[in-house]
C-alpha cells in the first residue's frame, strides 16, 4: 500500500490491519511516534490524518491510504518549530518527554479547530493524553501561549 507521511510517499508491504503506529515506527522508521498502551488509553501515538488527531495504534494502515499523515517529525523540526512545539520548548514542558509527541499533536489539532480554547475545552481535548511525569500544569500553560501565537499569525 502507498502512504503519504510528512509529505513523502512510502510504498509499504504490510497486512491491512497493521496499526499505522507500527507501520510508521518499524516499517518507515519514524520514531517520534510513540507506543505507550496500544489501546487508545494514553495518546502517545497521536498523529494527524488529514489534519485531525487520531490514535495511530487504533488506526489501520490501510485506512490512511490516500490521506495526508502528519507526525511530530513532520509538524516541525528543532530548527523550524511549529508554534505549538515552540511553546512547549519555551515552557520547558517535557520531563522524560515520552508523552510529549502525542501531547503536541493533540494540542496542534485542537488549536486548528478551536483557536481560543477555554479551560474546559482544553480539559476535554487533552485528557486522553496521559503524562506519567505530571507535566499537566506546563502543558496547559504552553497551550495558552501557542494559541495566542497562532492567533497572531
Amino acid at each position, binding site marked *: 500500500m502507498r502512504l503519504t507521511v510528512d509529505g513523502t510517499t512510502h510504498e509499504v508491504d504490510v*497486512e491491512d490491519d*497493521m*496499526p499505522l*503506529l*507500527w507501520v510508521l515506527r*518499524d*516499517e518507515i*522508521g519514524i*520514531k*517520534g*511516534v*510513540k*507506543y*505507550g*498502551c*496500544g*489501546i487508545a*488509553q*494514553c495518546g*502517545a501515538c497521536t498523529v494527524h490524518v488529514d489534519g485531525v488527531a487520531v490514535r495511530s495504534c487504533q488506526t489501520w494502515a490501510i485506512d490512511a491510504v490516500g490521506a495526508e499523515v502528519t*507526525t*511530530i*517529525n513532520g*509538524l*516541525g*523540526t*528543532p530548527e523550524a*518549530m511549529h508554534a505549538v*512545539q*515552540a511553546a*512547549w*520548548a519555551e515552557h*520547558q*514542558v*517535557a*520531563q*522524560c*518527554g*515520552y*508523552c*510529549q*509527541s502525542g501531547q*503536541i499533536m493533540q494540542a496542534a489539532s485542537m488549536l486548528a479547530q478551536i483557536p481560543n480554547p477555554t479551560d474546559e475545552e*482544553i*480539559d*476535554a481535548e*487533552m*485528557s486522553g*493524553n*496521559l*503524562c*506519567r*511525569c*505530571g*507535566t*499537566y*500544569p*506546563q*502543558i*496547559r500553560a504552553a497551550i495558552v501561549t501557542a494559541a495566542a501565537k497562532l492567533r497572531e499569525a
Partner: protein
Amino acid sequence: MGRGKTIARRAFLIGSAAVVGGVAFGAYLVKRPLENPLLADLAEGEAALTEYVRITADGVTLITPRADKGQGAYQVQAMLIAEELDIDLDQVTMEPGPPAAAYYNTALSEEAPGFMPTDDGFGANSMRSIMQAAMKVMGVQITGGSTTTADAWEKLRVAGAVARETLKAAAARETGVAVAQMTTARGAVILPDGTKIPYVDLAETAADIQPVEDVTLKDPSAWRYIGKPVQRFDIAAKSTGTQDYGIDFELDGMLHATVVTNPRKGGACWWINGDEALAMRGVQAVVPVTGGFGVIADNTWRAFQAAKVVTAGWSKAPYAAEQADHWAALEAAFSKDGQDSQYRDDGDIEAALAAGDVVQAEYRAPYLAHAPLEPINATVRVAADRVDVWTGTQVPRFVQAEVAKITGHDADNVHVHVLVMGGSFGHRLELDVCKQAAEIALTVPNTPIKLTYSREEDMAQDYTRQIAMARMRGTVKDGQVESLDLGIAMPSVVASQMGRLGLSVPGPDAQIVAGAWEQPFGIPNYRVTGYRAEELAPISSWRSVGASTNGFFHDCALDEVIHAAGADPMAERIRLMWDDASRAVLEAVAELSGWDGPSMGPDRGRGVGFCMSFGVPCAEVVEVTNTEAGIKIDKVYVVSNVGQVVDPETLARQMSGGALWGLGHAISSEITHFDGMTEQVNFDGFEAMRLYQAPQVETRALELGDHVRGMGEPAVPPAAAALANAIFAATGTRLREMPFRNHFKFV
C-alpha cells in the same frame, strides 16, 4: 577560601589521563587494601579514571554519569562541571551515561553507590539503600547517604576546576605567560592582552602535564549556572519528537522480539506451543526464556500478535493467589513475632494511652505499578567475543554482571550502553528485560535483538510498590498532642529486591518505617513500630519507596490526633516540630498558601501534609472543593528544603511532578491480584492522573544547611496525606485507604 583543596584531598582524587587526541579529567580511583569491594575488578594499586570532562581537537565533552529518567539529572550534572570549567552549555557535547568507549573498562561504572545529590532521588536513594544492604551482607561499613551526597556535589565541580586550572597551566607552558595573569571564559583561556586560546587547542599539552590539584572552588557569588534558570539542553529534542529513547534504538539487521512470562509473577513455564505463531507472517522463532517464551519477528507488532497465539503451561503463583489473602498476611503481621523494628519509642506510650481517651484508626495503601510511559525494552547483540546491551537502566553494573552469566562472557566483555529513558519511577532498577533479551539473542548470534514489552506485559510483570497497613492510636492533653503510637505492616521491599539478586539481608528493613519513625516531631509519648509481613507478590522500589505509604499513614494519623486536640493542623505541627529546617518549611508553606485554618467556607477545605524523606523535609497544602459532581483539587502548594538549588526549573518540576504523582495515585490507582495474576494490565484498569484533574502547583525551595539534596522523591509522601486531610476539612470524612475514588468521586 581554599575549600577545594581540602575537599579534593579528603574525599577523592581528581586527575587526568591522555585520551586519543586530547585529555580527560575525572575522579581517580585507586585500589588499595580494604577499599570499597565494588572496586574488586581492579587489581591492587591499579588506577581508574571516571571521566567527567573530555577535551580533544573536536571539542569539549561533558560526561554525565548519573542516569536521567526525565528529571533533568544530565542537565544538573553538566551545570556543575560547566560552572567551574568556565564553559557555556551551548559549547559542549553531552555524553550521557557511562561512556561506551570504556578504556578503563568496568571501573567506569564503579561509582554506582555514590549518587549525584541532585540525581532524582528515587533511583539514587533506593539504590543507595540496596547498595547499603549489599554492603551489609558483605560485612562492610560505608559512609551514610548524606556524606556521599555532599561529596558528589563537590566532585563534579572539582573536576571542572581541575580541568580549568590544568588548561591554564597548559597555556602557561605554551605562551610563557604566568597562570596568575590568565582568566577563563566561554571555553577559552584569556591572556592579559586579550588573546583567547580555546580549550580544544590546549588539549594535547594538558594531557602532557601533571594535573593541577590545588584548586579553589568559586565563591557562590560568582556562580553563573548554579541556582540560575537555564534552558534544558534536551528540551528542543523533546519538543520535536527527535529525542530517541531505548525503544527507538535501531541497528542494521536487527530483529524485533517480545516476551510473555507466567502471569503469576515468578512462576514457572512448563511447556510452550508456538506452532500457530510460527506460521504467521514475519515470525522467525519462538524460544523459551526463563518463566515463559520469546517471539522473534521482523516487526514489533508482528511479534506482539504472534505472542498472543502461543500457548503455554503455567505453574501456580509462588505467593498468595487472592488479594484478600495479601491483606490477611498484613493483618497477621501485627504481632510480637512480626515485629521488625522499633526505632522510635519516646516517653511512656502505654501509660499515656491508658490515661486518656484514645483516638484510633486503621489505614491501608494498595500495590501500585510503576508504569513509566515508555514500556520496558532492551536491545542485545551476542557475538563470540563480546556482548552489547543497549537499554535504559538505572543499574548498568548489575545488567553487565547478569547478562555475562547468561551468555557466558567475561563481564569485561559485556558492554552496557545506557539510553535515554521515558520515565522509570524505580521500574528500571529491575533487569529481567535485559536477561530475557540476552536469552533470546543467544539463540541468534551476531543478530541484534530488540526486545519490547507490550504494555500488558510491562504491567502484568511489574514488581509493584508494596502494599501496607498501619494502625494508629493517640491521645491529647490540654488541647495538644500528647501521644502517638503508629504500627506499620508491609512485606520487605529490600528483601524482595535483593532476593532477585540472590542476596539475603539480615536485620530490620528500615523501609518498613521510612517516612514515619524519623519524623522530627517532639511528641511527648511517641512510638513507631515496623512489622514485617511474609513475602507476597514480588515488590520493588517505587518512587519514594517505604515513605510512599508511610508518609500518608504517619501524617494522617497525626492529623487525627491534632483534630481531637482541637488544635489548628498547621500551628500544632509547627509547635511540635524540633527540626529548624522542617519548621521553616512548614512556616513557608503556611505563608505561601495563606493558611488561616482548615476551613475555606462551605464545601471547601484545605489540608497540610508533612513528611521528611531522604533527608528532605517537604510540606504540602492541598485545597479542595466538594462540588456536586465530586471532589475538585483546586490548588497545591509545595515547599521543601534542599540545601542548595542547582537548577531551579528542574527542581520546581520535580516538586510539582512529585506532588501530582502522589495525588494521582492516591485518587485513582491500585493493583490487585486474582488467581495469582495482576488484574490491571493497561491504563484502562490502572488509571492515573489526567489533565482535567491536575491542579496548579506553586512551589518554593528553601536553601538551609549545606547539603544538596535531590527532589525526585520527597514531594511524593506528603501529597496523599495533604489531600486526605483537605477532604476531611471540606467534608468531615476521613479517608484512610487508597485509592480515594473508592469513597468519593473526583472531578
